[in-house]
């Protein structure tokens, strides 16, 4: 168990607590939701084994589902995110591959890399989440508005977390 593992476990509990206690009640303009707990999955190490990532995503989603009374919906969206993540990472590989101590960090990987990576995954997660919640394709416009605005909101909060808690210096260890 390295120090990094503890950091991720810590992130898991903090983000879940923030999601359940704070973000659950915070909805902007009745359309923009914030699912900040996905940041835990986004910030996991780059070289994470696929299967372990999927299982972690499932556990995270189910935990959130328990508090939201939406059994399986968050879990399904999280598992989709975890499945897509390695492909997105592969697509975004820098010219000379990821270095050993590379991590998902806006200072380390650059703004463009980070924006594409997190925005795409957050969007896919929200897309799955809101359509599963709806259970059909009625109220399409309103749902799409919810998806876009919520993705933007979640992304903004992810960026804020990165800027506040992930310093450029710390990752150079």
């Amino acid at each position: 168990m390295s120090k990094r593992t503890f950091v991720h476990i810590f992130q898991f509990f903090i983000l879940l607590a923030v999601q359940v206690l704070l973000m659950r009640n915070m909805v902007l303009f009745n359309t923009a939701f914030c699912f900040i707990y996905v940041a835990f999955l986004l910030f996991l190490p780059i070289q994470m084994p696929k299967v372990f990532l999927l299982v972690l995503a499932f556990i995270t989603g189910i935990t959130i589902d328990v508090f939201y009374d939406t059994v399986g919906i968050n879990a399904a969206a999280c598992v989709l995110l975890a499945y897509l993540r390695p492909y997105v990472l592969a697509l975004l590989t820098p010219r000379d591959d990821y270095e050993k101590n590379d991590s998902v960090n806006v200072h380390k990987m650059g703004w463009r890399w980070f924006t594409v990576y997190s925005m795409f995954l957050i969007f896919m997660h929200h897309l799955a989440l809101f359509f599963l919640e709806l259970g059909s394709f009625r109220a399409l416009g309103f749902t799409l508005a919810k998806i876009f605005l919520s993705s933007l909101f979640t992304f903004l909060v992810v960026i804020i977390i990165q800027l506040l808690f992930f310093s450029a210096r710390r990752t150079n260890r």
Partner: protein
Amino acid sequence: MRNLFAFIYRFRGFLVFLLLEIVCGFLIVQNNNYQGAAFYNSANAYAGRVLEFQKEVSDYFRLVEVNRALVNENRRLKESLTNIMVSDRLDSIPPMPDSAYRVKPDSLTLAQQRLDTTGIVREFRFIPGKVIKSDVRRVDNHLLLNVGSTQGVAPGMGVVSSNGVIGRVKSTSRNYATVYSLLHSKMAVAAKIKRNNTNGTIRWDGENYLVANLDYIPRHIQVQKGDTVVTSGYNAIFPEGVMIGRIISVATESDKSFYNIRVRLSVDFNNLTYVYVIKDLNKPELDSLQIKSGIAKDE
């Protein structure tokens, strides 16, 4: 055989993904059933405790508001009690046998005596509970109450607040209960327009948590803006005449035989504290009769 294992190993990511999504799909479908697995929702003891703690903290900031609502409810109850006291019904009740002069009877004994003399059997019992979680902005909204099976709450019971209809109990644990809010895509409440007793169904369309639709009101009925909509009491969930809301708009479409009626709900779901779970004491009898006569199937 080795090839098979090699194949499974090669596509392990996709296969695990598929497996987990199937599990999720199974859970989603199962949860739509009326009595879902009680553990996987917020009625389980751990989640309930966390949410209760959160509610306790946030309630401190709304104490004034909550007190005002309770005082209002008290005032209303007092008024209706006074109305009963001064009405001529009082005279029909014999004075207490052991009192020489007529005393002001206690409201409970008054009601009990009235029921005893008229032969009406008491039908509904109210179990007070506190809302510790309430959503309004999702497609399927739920509430979490701090009363459970220990207090006599069971799935299927109706929930009301002092302002009107709230929803229906979905599942219970020992000390908590989850409730389908009226703001749930699969929730429908048998309703009627109070002025002319026309029956319809209240459904929520998923957008604004203050407004719901009243369906199946035929076009030959006179409907006005501002009409009161109450429960019809046609099912054993809610008593008759519980407030639902007021009509805010009536529209007709040329190809439909029913009105499009919008109702402003009397309950602010974003701001709930105390509610009552309704236990219908006649429900077992009603249900068994319906099943016996083949009208309703066992849920």
